[in-house]
């Protein structure tokens, strides 16, 4: 029984699935799925009940059954039993307070988190306010290494996203020069291809690696094609820094992306064998609330819980970076600035608690009820939360994907505002290039033509 009285009225929730949906902050995608609370009071009631649920209940009742879903099996089989035994009897409300306590050491959180399933992490996220999410995440540093090191305290990295509408190598190269001159690109130089064919992807991989070699840049490169195309590139000897794939929180959702756990396992093995960085972390995943619902693969569960399960799947591979593309999906899942902000803070916190090197593509499409100002707000909040990296897109306008992300200028400003530095290896390179000094852009910075001299 899951029931409470509130303001004299009785609220009865038939099961955890319904309770979890109604405990969420307002999201258009939960409403579309028929899972949202019907009133603010019902939402409040759901949270009172959720706060009393023991964590073990979520292990016993995952969003998709263990036998029928391989993502569930990845999540449950990956739990550390010793950690789990310590917290199995805690309530969701108790977990929230323990995560926020000044007496809880961050290392202790990382240890216990190995015993938390994705549903448990989703549950506690529903009880967090926005500042809770910022504060709790800021204590969770996740450091990963590939060519360089990401996630160290006091650092903010950037994925350089130099897309071109027709994958013109010259156009992509020019945007890479621009981004580098702003100190961007230390998380990855990652190109979304318009053409997913092997020949086109291999050509861009070669071009990006050529820049990195010519200028001896301590960073990694990636072309965000379907994982099968990248696997072919690896087998044919193309220079691959990170192996990318978009993932979903259920087996059926992943099938709609044309992937499976077996395929990701194979990709990770190939990456370890063929990628050029020192490693040991080679994978790059992207996620976003609503993707499972849009593939009719959410099994009646809310989009926050399905998003948590993305992270449960990702942690199997110790990825170098993961990011939520938070506003890309459209207003039927995240309607306006407030919903996008909330989802961005939730996703970052949940990813970090899963032990992932989380970044965020703070973004929107033009039919969402939001603006560039709202994106800048969220970027400041996430930078304060210790977000590992943001996207770097020329003036935030992606000329291929037709949406607005964050600009090279935004990462530069956030670093100077909050006294954050690039990854240490990359910062040393920027200093040697004369583009940055003591964490600030030099007069020489912001000029792509400095890269025309070699």
């Amino acid at each position, binding site marked *: 029984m899951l029931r409470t009285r509130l303001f004299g009225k009785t609220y009865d929730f038939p099961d955890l699935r319904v309770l979890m949906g109604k405990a969420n902050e307002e999201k*258009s995608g939960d*409403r*579309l799925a028929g899972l949202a609370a019907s009133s603010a009071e019902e939402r409040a009631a759901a949270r009172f009940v959720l706060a009393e649920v023991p964590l073990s209940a979520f292990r016993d009742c995952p969003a998709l059954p263990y036998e029928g879903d391989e993502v569930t099996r990845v999540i449950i089989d990956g739990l550390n039993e010793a950690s789990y035994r310590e917290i199995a009897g805690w309530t969701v409300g108790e977990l929230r307070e323990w995560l926020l306590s000044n007496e809880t050491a961050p290392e202790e959180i990382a240890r216990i988190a190995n015993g938390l399933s994705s549903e448990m992490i989703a549950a506690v996220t529903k009880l967090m306010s926005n500042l809770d999410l910022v504060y709790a995440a800021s204590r969770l540093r996740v450091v990963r290494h590939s060519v360089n090191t990401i996630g160290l305290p006091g650092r903010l990295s950037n994925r350089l996203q*130099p*897309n*071109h*509408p*027709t994958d*013109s190598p*010259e*156009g*992509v*190269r*020019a*945007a890479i*020069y*621009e981004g580098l001159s*702003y100190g961007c690109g230390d998380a990855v130089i990652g190109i979304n291809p*318009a053409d997913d064919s092997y020949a086109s992807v291999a050509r861009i991989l070669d071009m990006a690696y050529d820049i990195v070699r010519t200028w001896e840049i301590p960073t990694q490169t990636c072309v965000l094609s379907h994982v099968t195309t990248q696997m072919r590139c690896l087998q044919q000897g193309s220079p691959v820094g990170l192996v990318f794939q978009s993932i979903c929180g259920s087996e059926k959702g992943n099938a709609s992306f044309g992937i499976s756990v077996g395929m990701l396992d194979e990709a990770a093995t190939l990456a370890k064998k063929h990628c050029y960085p020192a490693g040991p972390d080679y994978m790059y995943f992207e996620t976003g609330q609503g993707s499972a619902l849009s593939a009719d693969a959410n099994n009646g569960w809310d989009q926050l819980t399905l998003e948590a399960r993305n992270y449960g799947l990702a942690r199997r591979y110790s990825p170098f970076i993961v990011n939520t593309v938070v506003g890309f999906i*459209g*207003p*039927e899942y995240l*309607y306006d600035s407030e919903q996008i902000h909330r989802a961005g803070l939730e996703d970052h916190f949940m990813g970090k608690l899963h032990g992932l090197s989380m970044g965020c593509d703070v973004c929107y*499409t*033009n*039919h969402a*009820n939001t*603006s*560039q100002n709202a994106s800048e707000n969220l970027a400041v909040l996430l930078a304060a939360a210790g977000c590992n990296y943001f996207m770097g*897109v*020329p*003036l*935030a*306008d992606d*000329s*291929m*994907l*037709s949406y*607005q992300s964050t*600009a090279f*200028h935004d990462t*530069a*400003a956030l*670093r*100077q505002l909050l006294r954050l530095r690039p990854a240490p290896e990359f910062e040393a390179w920027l200093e040697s290039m004369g583009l940055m000094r003591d964490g600030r*852009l030099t*007069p*020489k*910075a*912001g*000029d*792509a*033509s*400095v890269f*025309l*001299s070699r």
Partner: protein
Amino acid sequence: MMEEERIEAIIEAVVRELAPALGRGDSPAATTGSHNAAAHGAEAPAGAGTAAPSAQARVPPVAPAAAPPRAAMPSPRPPAGATAPQGLSIDLEDPMAAASLARPGVAKPADAEGLAALKDTTTARICVGRAGPRPRTRDLLVFQADLAISKDALARKVDPALLSQFGLFTVSTMVTGGREEYLLRPDLGRRLSEEAKRTVTERCAKSPDIQVCVGDGLSARAIEANLAKILPVIQSGCQVAGLSLGTPFYIEGCRVGAMNDIGDLVKPRVLILLIGERPGLGRADAMSAYMGFEPRSGHSDADRDVVCNIYDGGGVNPLEAGAYVIRLAQRMIAARASGVRLRLAEEKA
């Protein structure tokens, strides 16, 4: 009118192009332009005919194809009782049409010539320079103007005068709660209202070879910019090709999935839905033509083809798109299939 002459010229060209193909009874050779809807989505550039995707690279980086609405201009004379300084007069030519937008904004580049060449390689907003770690004023205002044109396109309705000019009657989908409901409930935009179903049943000729419908989608501006160009080409193309054309109509609150309901009621061989695309930044006039062979309930994007990025000045020219759409319809009729099945059928043949 220049525009009318141009349309006539294109129609003549269509006639010339279609005639031999019809004589041979097979479909035209340009098969590479078909983009499957499921595989590429609405953002993929569609290479129809000569308007290859590479044409995009010629778009000036920040100038929209159509001049955006002018900002209200300050009066050159100080109004009575104004507190503005004497003699202040700001009278701007449209800043978004300024040629200077194409020039790099970096203060002291290491290689000025090289920088301009870099900028020419892409429509991305690069070589813009900075104010400290922030964008320069010009670029900030240009960005905001471009966002403004995209936002306004979403809120507007298609001009009724345009619809009556082409004799289009209007029906609605199940969206009754305006733009907000349209955005929040894609399922409602995929189904015709009961009243719409009655109207369509009453007024439309049944079982034509080609049925054309027009939907607002996410941009009224896209319909206004392209309809007068593409529709006459489709109409005369049908005539030349000997294809019967159904009764065209307009659908408010329309999503692509509404094609299934229309197919069930009108039973055309090929349905062409002209629909406004989601506006890109500063680009609100792009339209798509979604097409399906014998669309019915249960069909998905995999059963459809799409010609997207239809707009003047860098996209697929709407006149050429009209001609291409007719050729594609002929291929669908010949293969009795569309979408993935059309591709498979043509590979087999």
